């Protein structure tokens, strides 16, 4: 059964990295290899709540980055629209694997170095 719990975890993780998290969860709800109670639960999620969750996780990542990278914070202050565009690309390219601001800062700076190569 922890296999079911692992699968639910993967479904949620993929959905929260998807361009449309609600569509991703609705698609998973039709996966007949998942147990019926899981499919029912996925089919009944509050779409606004899913979107709000995805939004807050990105916002928390942004705040972590502002605390963890002086260069990112300076860039945001100097040119918010260019920084926002770059942050969107970073969010799409790099999975969130940092819990501490300094780790997020290192991830972002490595991504910037790669993008500027």
């Amino acid at each position, binding site marked *: *059964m*922890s296999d*079911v*719990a*692992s699968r*639910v*975890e*993967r479904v*949620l*993780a*993929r959905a*929260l*990295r998807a361009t449309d998290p609600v569509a991703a969860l609705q698609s998973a709800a039709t996966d007949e290899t998942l147990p019926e*109670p*899981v499919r029912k*639960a*996925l089919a009944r*999620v*509050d*779409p*606004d*709540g*899913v*979107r*709000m*969750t995805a*939004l*807050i*996780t990105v916002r*928390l*990542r942004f705040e*972590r980055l502002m605390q963890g990278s002086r260069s990112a914070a300076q860039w945001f202050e100097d040119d918010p629209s260019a920084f926002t565009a770059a942050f969107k690309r970073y969010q799409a390219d790099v*999975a*969130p*694997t*940092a*819990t*501490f601001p*300094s*780790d997020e800062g*290192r991830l972002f700076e490595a991504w910037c170095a790669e993008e500027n190569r």
Partner: protein
Amino acid sequence: MTALGFSLQPEERTLELLAAVIREEPDYYEVAPETLWRRDRAGRFHPNGFHELFAALAAETGKPFVAHGVGMSLGTVHPDATDRARRLARVTADHALFQFLWYTDHLGATTLDGLELTLPMPPFMSRETAAIVRSGLATMRAVVPDVGVENSVFYFHLGDPLDEPAFLADIVRDPGHHLLLDLHNVYTTAVNADFDPWVYVERLPLEKVIEIHLSGGSESDPKWLPSKRVMRLDSHDHSVPDEVWMLLERTLPLCPNLRGVTLERMEGTVTEADVPLLREELRRARRTMELARV
């Protein structure tokens, strides 16, 4: 007698503004252990500057501390064993210094399939998931004898949110496992999912409640969602709403093993004008506890 607590936030300006309130009003302090650490490139945890600051406050005031973690991700099915062991080793070292009265973390998973999301994600409520959370609590209990799980705010659910109290009861059924009841989280979830918060509270195993959290929140901007819907947020950035005070009054007499009521406020949200308001909120909490004779 139940004690009154206040959460210490890792931000110099907030601590400076609240210096007198922090020293004069609460009986104990709550800290998120992870906010007292930095991580080196090898992944090991070390005390940061706030660790030293709070240790000095402990020495100065003699007031006890409780730990309210944010990083154990109790709902993660297969947590990274190395990372969890390092976290617990650091909490063990912190416990040797702060002598935490109890140690809690949140319901849900902040780590999903290797992704670090910070915000707890809702669990699929089953006996198996409850066993996963119990197992995480048992590892925490190896460090601090009394541990607990807090009802989190989830903005969506995998199941009926009113089934969550029974799920929590299953999680905290073992001795030494407790419930941290966050009344603003109950209220926020009730507003967003459209149910009566008292129905949720009265379904809980209230005899397992060791601590109650009080806080305030705000509402989302209508522009955030395509539907323009406004949702209540667990943002800890405003005063405790009346609905939460009413929940406190009703809940206190029903929690025979309650040891603390803690007021939480997010760093970066306190201005000079908020200082007397926060002092009054702490005093109101104490008066409410005295009236309830807990």
